[in-house]
């Protein structure tokens, strides 16, 4: 006999196919009952969870049916007179009769007059850079002159932030005021705005002022 003929495949051994697992005694007999019990428990849990999600609050009967009307009433109450009274939306002003028909002619006259003035106009003093610089210089000087008791200003050059803060804290400057300003430009612009408003107004009353300024410019 050859070796090949003597070989037996272990998987062919019927013993190998034998189930080695076991179940507890009576497992299958009780399985159905166990399953039913488990389903019952799960059902109870689901019911409980559903129940817990139910709101505990109640609304009066018919609440939601009346809600829309209530909101409308509230809105009407909130908007009060301003929207109740339609005529309030109409401003009580009138223009003289024929005003709009004659407006354009009046405007053209003004434009022509402006054009004449523009051709002979000089640049107002407040628009000159030197004027801004002068205001800035006066402000800076005033800033220090008005603080005669201040300690001597440290030598110019590179000053650290700490040095500046130490200097300012020894001075009588209002630090809050300084902190509240965006910079000197704010002050200058504010002064210029105030001054030019007055200047504009004076110029409107006295056009000859412009010629005086022209004289000063030379």
């Amino acid at each position, binding site marked *: 006999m050859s070796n090949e003929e003597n070989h037996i495949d272990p998987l062919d051994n019927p013993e190998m196919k034998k189930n080695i697992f076991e179940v507890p005694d009576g497992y299958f007999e009780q399985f159905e009952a166990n399953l039913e019990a488990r389903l019952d428990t799960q059902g109870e849990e689901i019911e409980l969870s559903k129940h817990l999600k139910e709101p505990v609050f109640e609304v009066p009967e018919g609440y939601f049916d009346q809600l829309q009307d209530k909101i409308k009433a509230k809105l009407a109450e909130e908007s*009060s*007179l*301003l929207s109740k*009274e339609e*005529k*309030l*939306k*109409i*401003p*009580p*002003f*009138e*223009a*003289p009769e024929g*005003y*709009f028909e004659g*407006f*354009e002619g*009046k*405007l053209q006259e*003004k*434009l022509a007059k*402006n054009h004449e003035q523009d051709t002979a106009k000089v640049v107002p003093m407040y628009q000159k850079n030197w004027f801004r610089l002068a205001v800035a210089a006066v402000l800076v000087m005033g800033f220090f002159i008005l603080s005669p008791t201040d300690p001597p200003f440290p030598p110019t050059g590179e000053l650290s932030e700490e040095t500046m803060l130490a200097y300012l804290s020894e001075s009588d400057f209002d630090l809050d005021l300084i902190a509240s300003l965006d910079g000197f430009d704010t002050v200058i612009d504010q002064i210029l705005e*105030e001054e030019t*408003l*007055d200047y*504009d*107004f004076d110029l409107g009353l006295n056009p000859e002022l412009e010629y005086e300024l022209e004289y000063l410019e030379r």
Partner: protein
Amino acid sequence: MEDREILIEFKENNGKDKAFSALVSKYQQRIYWHIRKMIIDHDDTDDVLQEVFVKVYKNLDGFREASQLYTWMYRIATNEALTFLNKRRKRLSLGLDEINNELENHLTSGVYISGDEVQMKLQKALLILPDKQRLVFNMKYFDDMKYDEISEITGTSVGALKASYHLAVKKIEQYLTRN
């Protein structure tokens, strides 16, 4: 004439006058009422209206069309009206209450003003508001403008405008209820 056509024609030398004339006819009333509601007096409004159109004429060439033409003109009118009130306040050294008294005098003078008791009461109530809040109220309440438009004209955020309008309404309602 459409705004676009007006602008194109204005920028051509020979069409300037015709285009400007069309612009004035188209917008004079809207701008007039916008200013009038702030300044109250007709003669003062007339001065400011002319000044607005003079500024428009001088600057229309440089208008970059980033905004609509009427929004741009409203912005000029708004600035001019507020500047006028500020100037008057400064010139006469008046406080807010005093200038409001002066505006109220114009209201009660009855010159070019016609309104019944309720309408006049609202106008008086409006005078208790600061100028800018009154402006926002006018644009929203009387002109039914959208907050976006008002925002573009006043340069204020929509949120701030809503808050301002809401406060204005509260103040006015309080005034109307008290009086």
